[in-house]
C-alpha cells in the first residue's frame, strides 16, 4: 500500500498563506498531475506532501499515518522526491549519483548489500543509462541528466514518486522521454506518481488523475476529460481556450485564444 493524502492542510511562507485548508487524496497506482497557474500553491502542495514543509494546521497522511510523526528515514523508504532543478556535486558519475538513492536503505555498517547493487543496476537499466553509468553527470545532455535524477529516485525503490516539474527546461523530445519513462515506471512497477506539470496537453496525455489547484485550494479533480473543459480552464488559469479532442489519441487538447488569435 502506498497512498499519500492531505487533510485540511494550511501552509505558507512567513506570514503568507499559500495552501488554505486543502484536502486531497492521490489515487494509488496512478499518475496524478497537479496543475494550476503560477503561485497557486501546486509546488507548495508537493513540498508539503513530501514533508519538506510542515503544515501550520492539518496533516499529510502517508499510508494513513501522519507523515511528520514518522522517522524521516522510514518516509524515505516509501516516498521518493525529485525537486525542481536539482544540482549534482561536481565531478560525480552517473552510477555514483544513482547509488545515493540507496541511502534510506543503508546504515553505517551496511552500505552495499547485494540488494543495493541490484537496485542501482536496475534503475540504470530502466532509465536507459547503463551505457552512460561511468560518465560524469555534468557531461550529460539535459534529458539524460533528468533521467539520471529519476534513476536516483528509482534506486530508492519506493512505491511513491513525487516530482516537481520534471520536464521544465527540456525540449519537447526530452519532455516526452521523461514522461514516457515515468509512465513505464507506473505501468511496469505499479509506482504511484504525483507530479507538477505546466504543459496541459502533455498532462492530458499522461495523467490518470488531474488535480486543478486555484488559490490554495483544490478547485476540481478527476480524469483529464472531466477536468479539461473550456470553462474549467478559464476558471483555473483565467485563460480563454477551446478544448478539442486529439484526433490521434483522443485526449483533450487545449487551443488557447489571445488578442492576436481571437475566439
Amino acid at each position: 500500500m502506498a497512498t499519500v493524502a492531505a487533510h485540511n492542510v494550511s501552509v505558507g511562507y512567513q506570514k503568507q498563506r499559500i495552501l488554505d485548508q486543502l484536502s486531497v487524496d492521490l489515487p494509488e497506482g496512478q499518475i496524478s498531475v497537479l496543475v494550476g497557474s503560477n503561485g497557486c500553491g501546486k509546488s507548495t502542495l508537493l513540498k508539503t506532501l513530501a514533508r519538506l514543509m510542515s503544515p501550520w494546521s492539518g496533516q499529510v497522511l502517508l499510508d494513513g499515518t501522519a507523515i511528520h510523526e514518522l522517522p524521516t528515514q522510514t518516509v524515505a523508504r516509501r516516498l521518493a522526491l525529485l525537486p525542481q532543478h536539482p544540482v549534482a556535486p561536481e565531478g560525480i558519475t552517473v552510477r555514483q549519483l544513482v547509488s545515493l538513492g540507496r541511502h534510506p536503505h543503508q546504515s553505517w555498517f551496511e552500505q552495499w548489500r547485494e540488494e543495493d547493487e541490484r537496485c542501482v543496476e536496475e534503475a540504470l537499466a530502466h532509465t536507459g543509462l547503463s551505457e552512460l553509468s561511468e560518465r560524469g553527470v555534468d557531461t550529460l545532455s539535459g534529458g539524460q541528466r533528468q533521467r539520471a535524477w529519476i534513476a536516483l529516485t528509482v534506486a530508492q525503490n519506493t512505491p511513491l514518486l513525487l516530482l516537481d516539474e520534471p520536464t521544465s527546461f527540456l525540449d519537447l523530445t526530452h519532455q516526452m522521454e521523461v514522461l514516457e519513462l515515468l509512465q513505464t515506471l507506473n505501468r511496469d512497477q505499479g509506482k504511484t506518481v504525483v507530479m507538477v506539470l505546466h504543459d496541459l496537453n502533455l498532462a492530458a496525455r499522461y495523467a490518470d488523475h488531474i488535480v486543478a489547484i486555484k488559490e490554495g485550494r483544490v478547485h476540481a479533480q478527476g480524469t483529464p476529460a472531466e477536468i479539461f473543459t473550456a470553462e474549467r480552464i478559464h476558471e483555473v488559469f483565467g485563460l480563454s481556450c477551446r478544448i478539442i479532442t486529439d484526433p490521434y489519441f483522443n485526449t483533450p487538447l487545449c487551443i488557447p485564444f489571445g488578442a492576436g488569435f481571437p475566439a
Partner: protein
Amino acid sequence: MAERVLRRPGFSRRLDLAPWRRVLMVALVLLAVAAGSLATGKVPLGREQLLALLEGTHSPVRVIVLELRLPRLVLGALVGGLLALSGWLFQQIMRNALASPDILGVTSGASAAAVSYLAWLAVPLGAWGVPFAAMAGAVGAAGLIYALAWSRGVTPIRLVLTGIGVSAALGAVTTFVLAFSPLTTTLSAYVWLTGSVYGANWHDVGTLALWAVVLILPLAIKMRFAVLAALDDALATGLGVRVQRQRAVLLALAAAMAGVAIAAGGAFAFVGLIAPHLARRVSSAVGASQAVLSVLWGSLLVVCADWIARTVFLPLDLPAGIFVAALGAPFFLWLLLREAR
C-alpha cells in the same frame, strides 16, 4: 572499472579503487618529501650521521632529527591535514567551491582572539594561553556565524554571506589591536598570523594528534551525510537525512578542526581552500577518498612550505605560512591551465 565489493554478514562496502591509488601516490610523495626535509637543514645529514641515527647511538644529530625536525614535520603535516579536512567539509556543506575556514570567519575569529591575547594577556599570563585563545576565538566565531545565519534553519548561502561579514569585522579587530600594540607584540603576532611550526615539540604533536582523532572519528561515522550534504536540502531530505541537524554537527566538526589546527600552528591561510581543490583536480573521487586525498594534499603543502622556509634562507628560519601560498597557488594555477588545454 576498478571496484571492489566487500560483503560480510552485517557489513558491506563498495570501494572504488582508482581514487585510492591516487591516495597512495600522494602519500608516497609526502613520505619522500618528509625524508628529504628530515635530512636537510642547518646540520645536513650525511651518510655517517644517517647510519649513526639508524644504529641508535646517542649523538647531537640524533637530537636534531628526532627532537627538533621530526616533531616539527609531524606537527606541520597534522596542521595542514586538519585545515584541509576542515576546508573540504566546509566546501561540501556550503556547496561552494570558495568556502574555507579562512573565508568563513573561523580563521579570523582565531586570529582576533590570539592577537588580542598576545597584546594584552601574554605579558601578565605568559604565551602558553595563545592556543586556547585561538581555539576559543575559532569556536566563538563559528557559533556567532551560525546564530546570525539562523532563520528557521540555516541555508548554505546565508552561512557563506554571514561568514564573510563576520570575517571582515573580526579582521578589522585584529588590525585595530595590532595598530595599538608595541612593536614586539606586533612582530610575534605577525609570525602567528602567517602560520609557523617553528619550535614544535612532541608534546604539541601529541595534543594535536589527540584532537585529530577526537574530531576525525565522528566525521568517519558521518561521512555518508558529508557526501549527501553536497546535494540540495530537498533531495537530502527526500533521501531521509535530517538536514539541519547533520549540517550543524558537520559544521561544528569543521570549525573545531580548523580551530585546533590554527591553535597549534597559527593562522595558516589558503591550505583549507586549496587542498580540497587539488584533491578534486587529480581524481574523480567522492566521499571518503576525496576527504583523505584532501588531508594528504594539505599535509604535503605545509610540509613542503616548512621545508623551504627552514632551509632555503639559512640561517633564517622563516614562518612556513609564507610559502604555502607561494607554493600552492602556482601549482594550482598550473593544474587549472593544464585542464583547460
